[in-house]
């Protein structure tokens, strides 16, 4: 067992804090890289200083933050936790991705009112707090009547970030943060793990620093973006990264250009990002005078009740028949759903149901409730209707077979039910949101190859109901993972604010059983809530 009081971190040059180190470079050796289980001597022998701390979380994004928040509320002191990662602020990557995909701070996220990563109780919800603070009866009415008579309430991105900042300061997050990159976590001979951090240059005397811990939590987020193959080919062959953009890349130049020159834009995809990008294009046209023609390209056109397999009438490869009790609203190409998942995955029937399923059955229900979808919002509907009426918003259903340059423009050859038609456009914005395989991430790849990690029925990290990574146990130590890389497990909705909290709760409960942290029972929970409200440290 690691002595918790021995945990003093922040990479320092003071050799007295290091375990037997030798005057060498302190880098990973081939021997280390090839070995699945490391001994203390092997690490020390490579000259890598070892820092003891009971719990490390790798990632430093919102997944790390939410997990640490739970642990702090469960009474774990900051000295027993280290957050390893490259981000200064937990919401940094998230804010970047939302901003470029057209949800800047004043806009609203696609997230439930009670899903707040800065408050494990979800009370008061964002909506209740906003409604009461501003005495805004419209918001309170919206909360009461959603989703029947009003669109779902969703919080403003800026508010979510401000509240996260408040909670970050409250729990002493910065005391726990150690900046650097983590590409290797290995099991330790004798129990626990070594997490190898590469600090920024000059921050430590050696190239690597090893954190020796009983517990490791991995929350590294999306492994990366994946482009549609034909878009990627066009971009590389024509060396054109200006006219074909992914919605998750900074692409403000497109909107700027559209304000100056009447143009045609092809938008691909039918999800929330497509909705946001369309709204930006339509706002620019309706409010700021842009003369943009929008061609919206759907691969699957939803024309009515649907599920993850598509329209009710569509053929279902291996998926059985549409079910009376699992039908989603849809129309005009879109499948409509308030949030990323049917709401009950975060606590109700679907959560309870999936928790019991394994293998193919689990993959099947993921498929059935999945499929690209977007919320029905009054404003979007109004703008799209106007666009259809006035002829500047058109839909095409099909697959792009080929793309060729034509001067400054791009000709998309689209195979439709009526044959292949050419669509010429000035810009293509890819909102299909493909994610790369988890093995694209160096740490996850290393864990798959050397850490005992396996894949779940949908190909991501295989975690148990407690979010422990199956196959990674090391003596009395345990490794956990949460976030998008664990999609496909016993709990759907992992890649959302609330999903991270569901995971954090399970992880905290499991750690408590192992003797790390206290139980959050009704008394502790209530006392801690008051502390949260008052803004005092947990």
């Amino acid at each position: 067992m690691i002595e918790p009081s021995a945990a003093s971190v922040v990479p320092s040059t003071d050799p007295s804090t290091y375990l037997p180190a030798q005057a060498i470079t302190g880098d990973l050796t081939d021997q280390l890289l090839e070995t699945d289980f490391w001994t203390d001597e092997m690490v020390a022998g490579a000259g890598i200083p070892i820092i003891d701390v009971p719990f490390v979380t790798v990632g430093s994004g919102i997944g790390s933050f939410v997990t640490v928040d739970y642990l702090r509320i469960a009474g774990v002191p900051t000295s027993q936790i280290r957050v390893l990662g490259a981000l200064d602020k937990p919401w940094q990557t998230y804010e970047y991705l939302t901003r470029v995909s057209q949800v800047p701070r004043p806009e609203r996220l696609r997230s439930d009112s009670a899903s707040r990563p800065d408050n494990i109780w979800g009370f008061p919800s964002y909506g209740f707090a906003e409604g009461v603070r501003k005495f805004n009866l419209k918001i309170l009415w919206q909360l009461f009547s959603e989703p029947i008579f009003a669109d779902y309430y969703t919080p403003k991105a800026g508010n979510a970030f401000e509240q996260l900042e408040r909670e970050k300061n409250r729990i002493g997050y910065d005391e726990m943060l150690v900046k650097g990159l983590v590409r290797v976590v290995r099991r330790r001979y004798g129990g626990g793990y070594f997490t190898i951090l590469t600090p920024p240059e000059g921050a430590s005397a050696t190239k690597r620093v090893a954190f020796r811990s009983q517990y490791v939590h991995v929350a590294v987020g999306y492994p990366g973006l994946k482009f549609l193959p034909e878009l990627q080919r066009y971009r590389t062959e024509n060396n054109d990264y200006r006219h074909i953009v992914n919605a998750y890349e900074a692409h403000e130049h497109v909107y700027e250009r559209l304000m100056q020159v009447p143009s045609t834009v092809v938008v691909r995809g039918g999800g929330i990002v497509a909705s946001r990008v369309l709204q930006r294009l339509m706002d620019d046209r309706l409010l700021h005078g842009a003369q943009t023609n929008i061609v919206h390209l759907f691969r699957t056109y939803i024309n009515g009740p649907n599920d993850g397999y598509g329209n009710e009438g569509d053929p279902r490869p291996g998926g059985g028949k549409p079910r009376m009790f699992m039908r989603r609203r849809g129309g005009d190409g879109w499948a409509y759903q308030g949030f990323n998942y049917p709401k009950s995955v975060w606590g109700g029937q679907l959560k309870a149901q999936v928790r019991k399923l394994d293998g193919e059955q689990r993959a099947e229900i993921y498929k059935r409730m999945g499929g690209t979808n977007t919320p029905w919002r009054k404003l979007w509907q109004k703008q799209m209707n106007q666009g259809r009426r006035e002829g500047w918003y058109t839909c095409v259903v099909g697959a792009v077979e080929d793309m060729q340059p034509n001067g400054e423009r791009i000709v998309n050859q689209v195979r439709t039910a009526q044959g292949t038609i050419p669509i010429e456009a000035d810009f293509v914005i890819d909102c299909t949101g493909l994610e790369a395989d988890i093995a694209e991430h160096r740490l996850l790849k290393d864990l798959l190859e050397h850490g005992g990690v396996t894949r779940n029925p949908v190909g991501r990290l295989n975690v148990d109901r407690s979010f422990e990574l199956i196959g990674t146990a090391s003596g009395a130590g345990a490794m956990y993972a949460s976030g998008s890389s664990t999609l496909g497990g016993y709990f759907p909705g992992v890649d959302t604010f609330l999903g991270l909290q569901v995971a954090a709760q399970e992880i905290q409960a499991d750690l408590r059983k192992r003797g790390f942290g206290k139980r959050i029972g009704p008394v502790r929970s209530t006392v801690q809530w008051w502390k949260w409200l008052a803004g005092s440290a947990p």
Partner: protein
Amino acid sequence: MLPTLNGRLQTRIFMLVVFGGLITLVLTPILPDDPDYKTTYIILATVLVLGIIWELIYHGIQQFRWEKDWPTMFGLITAINEGALVWLLVDIGAVPGIDADSVPFWAFFIDFSVIWFVVWIWTNGPMRVPFIRWRFFGGRII
């Protein structure tokens, strides 16, 4: 709310026993036309027993919703059907231990409405403070 059937039943019983019990205790002496504790508690028990049947019906209705959720508003407006049925049964003397026409309407109305409203408010927020697992487990308490 995102209830499972089990969670619905548990939450219903918990709320009516705790809040229903306490509020009835406090309100009964000050209700109009002086109903006695026996009457108010029998009515509370009636709401609970019928409520279990209602929950089965609500669970059935919920199956038609893609989200499998139970909107906040539903939690409040179901007071109307439930209250009306209980009042009807009380008034015609169908509830054991209570004679027909013996319960003053306003006493029933106030007691029922106050309990319902407090339970609805509590369920939609403060409940999450002491019971952090409750909302993630379909409203189950145990």
